[in-house]
């Protein structure tokens, strides 16, 4: 076998790779500090283990949360602007049909994950990535209502004001953490997608011609 058997195709443009990793760091800081903030007054009958949180105490966690929020929002804004203006979203995430998504999720759950062409996102991926973007937006909007329930009371009315926004924020966090878990499991199942998030290119297996 020679090097010629292995070829590479470009899959992730540089702005996507940079914003992806900045976002991963921001989400990690937001979730871990957010769990500590949740622990100060839990909505449900459980607390997150303090060892899994960031900040050391409520005041420290709030400092992390309100610092990392700028990283999350600024980076997210750059990503969304790039995605819309460059046509990246239109090319990679659209169209997405509900029946195709259901079909592919069913296939994946039966262990028949078909992902031959890694340069294209399948319907399940498109839906998942669009959902992750939507969850990010929802987290920021509900976070704004919790942070400034008086100044943003118009926005607050859409989600049950301060108390409602706490639940929206919590469930959006839970859904995003679920997305991250599935995302990481999928990368583990198709590991050659992992280096491509750094290098931008992916190894295409030879078709045995």
């Amino acid at each position, binding site marked *: 076998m020679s090097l010629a058997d292995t070829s590479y195709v470009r899959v992730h443009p540089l702005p996507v790779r940079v914003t992806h990793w900045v976002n991963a760091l921001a989400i990690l800081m937001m979730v871990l500090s957010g769990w500590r903030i949740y622990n100060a*007054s839990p909505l449900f009958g459980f607390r997150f283990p303090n060892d899994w949180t960031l900040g*050391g105490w409520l*005041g420290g966690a709030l*400092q*992390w949360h309100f610092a990392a929020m700028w990283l999350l929002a600024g980076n997210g804004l750059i990503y969304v602007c790039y995605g819309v203006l460059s046509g990246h979203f239109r090319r990679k995430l659209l169209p997405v049909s509900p029946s195709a998504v259901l079909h592919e999720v069913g296939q994946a759950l039966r262990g028949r994950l078909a992902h031959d062409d890694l340069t294209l996102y399948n319907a399940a991926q498109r839906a998942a990535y669009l959902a992750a973007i939507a969850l990010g937006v929802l987290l920021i909007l509900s976070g704004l209502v919790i942070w400034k329930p008086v100044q943003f009371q118009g926005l607050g009315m859409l989600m049950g004001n301060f108390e409602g926004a706490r639940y929206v924020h919590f469930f959006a966090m839970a859904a995003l953490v679920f997305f991250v878990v599935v995302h990481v499991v999928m990368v583990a199942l198709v*590991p050659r997608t992992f280096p491509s998030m750094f290098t931008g290119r992916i190894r295409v*297996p030879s078709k045995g011609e």
Partner: protein
Amino acid sequence: MKRLSGMRDSLRQQPRPQIERIERRLFLKQGLSLGALALLSGCDVTDDDSVQRVLSGMSRWNDRVQSWLFDPDKLAPEFPESAITKPFPFNAYYDRDEIRTVDAASYKLEISGLVREKKPWTLPELYALPQVSQITRHICVEGWSAIGKWSGVRFSEFLQRIGADLTARYVGFKCADDYSTSIDMRTALHPQTQLTLRFADQILPPDYGFPMKLRMPTKLGFKNPKYIVAMFVTNDYPGGYWEDQGYNWFSGS
């Protein structure tokens, strides 16, 4: 070198599924150790001096952003009597059995700083001023909230009455329970900011800050000082009990 490239070649000759298994294992191992590192170092990271400087700097930046977001004419929502939370929670940096009792007869509110009339105020004098009421949501920095009814003197009118310099930056408060805090002048002049003397139409009980608290529905609970014994107007940043430990100073709602 030769051996290395030889190894690479032999690796390449491995059937692909095996390489992928190795890659998968490596990826999981690296991923897990990265996650563990991030989690384990959480507390230490916060204590690090340079990290703490960045976090404090961001908190000062957030003070500025909040001051800019603060609309002096925007009112916090008010609620009907039926929405009042009963019982209203007690909250302080100490337990209920350490609540300070202030002697009503000898009580005097001390005034200092950039103010024309520095004469201390007795309780009967304060009760004699025009009173207003509000039923608003008190939001704690911890995340819980509760609706209560507070009555007292509109703070902007009180500041005008004592001839405070309304262009000064801060109003600071000292409390009988060794608590302290300070607020920006724009919030001090907000129409719902109230020098509170009554809770639920009764003289403010010791649990909620007898004889006087400052009620601001536009700020988090810890910015609403109870058991106030002295207030001052100043241009020098006064800080506060929790603010000095790291809570955000502006903490506006």
